[in-house]
């Protein structure tokens, strides 16, 4: 039954790196993923309490992808992701309190209440590049533009666009990759194929079995891998990033994963099969990482538990801080339409 959900050659229920890793690296990645998980759970609670209005969108179950890929970037590389890649933001230094305050609509940078917590961009402080606020395909063209600027300035930098399976249907996916491939731009496109575009299954989105099957149209390399294994993510993303940085052009990676919550928290996921859900729950990225860390190559259960506790405290303090931040002044609504 399980093979219906994931190609057995990609599947795994235990994970292991094939590189030498320092304890500080493992700690940093585990912390980013755990902070993201606990932050998302807190956001869901705040939404149910009516403190977050509108909608809230979580990335629970997808934490390994952004963490693994962003862990490979140089400080002056750029990436863009919505909050499904929250852990990637944290790995770059964004603090949970900023994220929560923004979801609460508070007057905090960089948006000062003008944009949802779903999006985050700040190139100067975090190398997180600004992207479109709606269609998730739209930052493939703009990503090609960042990569174009790197190439024109002869800088060995890369731009990584994280987006989803649903984002490979709009024209911008093709237009952006087409342009980037023609000019051999340092653009890495990482598709988090989480089985659903809102409620629509992959077979209703595309006539090919995998997003990566679209890559031959651009004459660029592509790979398909299991996205809930942070070590596998690093293995595959490293090939993609090295390729782009070497001036060989874009690279498409498709990570198979699963969105364990709804499109947003308003979505009860009534359309998701219980067996599919159970299959992926056994392959939860944080659970796999934690089990590795419990083992001989990790830190042991007590140390992991201490990290978990520390993350819980960070999130609790973040909520208190965020709720204490002021709301934006109504008269500020007309400010910052145009740059000076």
């Amino acid at each position, binding site marked *: 039954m399980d093979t219906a959900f994931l190609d057995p050659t990609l599947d795994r229920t235990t994970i292991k790196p094939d590189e030498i890793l320092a304890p500080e690296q493992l700690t940093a990645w585990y912390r980013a993923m755990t902070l993201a998980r606990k932050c998302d759970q807190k956001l869901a609670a705040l939404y149910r309490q009516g403190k977050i209005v509108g909608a809230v969108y979580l990335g629970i179950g997808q934490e390994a992808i952004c963490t693994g890929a962003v862990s490979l970037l140089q400080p002056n590389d750029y990436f863009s992701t919505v909050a499904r890649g929250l852990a990637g933001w944290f790995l770059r230094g964004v603090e949970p309190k900023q994220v929560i305050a923004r979801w609460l609509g508070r007057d905090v940078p960089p948006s000062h209440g003008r944009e949802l917590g779903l999006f985050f961009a700040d190139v100067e402080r975090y190398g997180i590049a600004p992207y479109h*606020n709606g269609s998730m395909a739209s930052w493939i063209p703009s990503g090609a*533009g960042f990569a174009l600027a790197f190439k024109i300035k002869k800088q060995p930098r890369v731009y990584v666009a994280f987006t989803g399976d649903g984002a490979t249907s709009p024209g911008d996916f093709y237009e952006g990759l087409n342009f980037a491939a023609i000019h051999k731009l340092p653009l890495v496109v990482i598709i988090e194929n989480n089985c659903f575009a809102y409620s629509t299954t992959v077979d209703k989105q595309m006539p090919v079995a995998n997003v990566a099957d679209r890559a031959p149209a651009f004459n660029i390399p592509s790979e398909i891998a299991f996205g809930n294994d942070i070590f596998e993510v690093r293995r595959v993303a490293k090939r993609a990033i090295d390729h782009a940085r070497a001036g060989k052009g874009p690279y498409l990676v498709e990570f198979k994963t699963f969105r364990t919550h709804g499109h947003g928290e308003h979505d009860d996921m009534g359309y998701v099969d219980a067996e599919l859900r159970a299959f992926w729950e056994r392959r939860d990225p944080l659970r796999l990482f934690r089990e590795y860390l419990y083992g001989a190559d990790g830190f042991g259960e007590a140390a992991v538990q201490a990290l978990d506790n520390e993350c819980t405290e960070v999130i609790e303090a973040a909520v208190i801080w965020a709720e204490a931040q002021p709301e934006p002044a109504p008269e500020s609504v007309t400010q910052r339409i145009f740059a000076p």
Partner: protein
Amino acid sequence: MAVITYLEAISQGLREEMRRDSDVIILGEDIAVFGGAFKVTRGFLEEFGADRVIDTPISESGFTGAACGAAVEGLRPVVEFQFADFIACAFDQIVNYAAKNYYRWGIPMPVVFRGPSGGGFRGGPYHSQNPEAWFTHVPGLKVVQPSTPYDAKGLLKAAIRDNNPVIYFEHKHLYRRIKEDVPDEDYIVPLGVADIKRKGSDLTIVTYGAMVHASLDVAERLSKEGAECEVIDLRSLSPLDRNTFLESVRKTSRALVVHEAQLTGGFGGEVAAIIAQDAFDVLDAPVTRVAALDVPAPFSAPLEDAMLPNPEKIYNAACKVLGY
């Protein structure tokens, strides 16, 4: 000083900015090897090289998005849409990405979108449009439309130096028809400043783009008949210089608003509303609009001529306002 065409003025402005600032790059369909469908960028590839003069695939949304990204990273891209009509294909990137970027993040996006616009030479429904009102409705975009070589050059330079997305509509029918002396030395025409193209005391005609010339023809004719029109060329629609036309209307007490785009939802409605609201007390006649009929731009000559505004239609409307 040298007498140059409107098209040469655009070309000169672009070339001078590319010489002045190596961050200025240009992208568009057929602009490099071919020099552009209208030859605005003829010789640019040879002078500035393939890194800065980029022939794009036919994918407006793709190269618009790319220009936006490159702009954030410190370049100053100028995008050429081969025809302004094709900007529809890039609408999402412009209105949902470029226009909102600074508001959302405080990150400037200095990018210029050039759109050869306008009808009058049988281009048909997809090569004749004046889409400025699609964009004046969107906060965060600047929209300009020059009518003369001097303004074309100066507005383009100002647009390139501006730290915001600017949509620059250049009227194709003015390209080789309109010529004037343009200074050799560097100058800009600031965004958001209208220009009084003709002084007058009896009727204010607020217009822009190709209709400036049609309105000036009408003003000349009416002058011979004893009525003096003041012709205001808005030049920038966003930001809009309200004061210049409001002051004029306070002097003349009569206003005619003229543009080549279709009437309904056209930018003239905004100008008329401002005059009605802020100068109601001085008006001696209803604010009146002259614009294209509310139909797509047709191909066949009798149809297009019937659709577009022209000096005759402007004259008739002006006489009505003057005689009210």
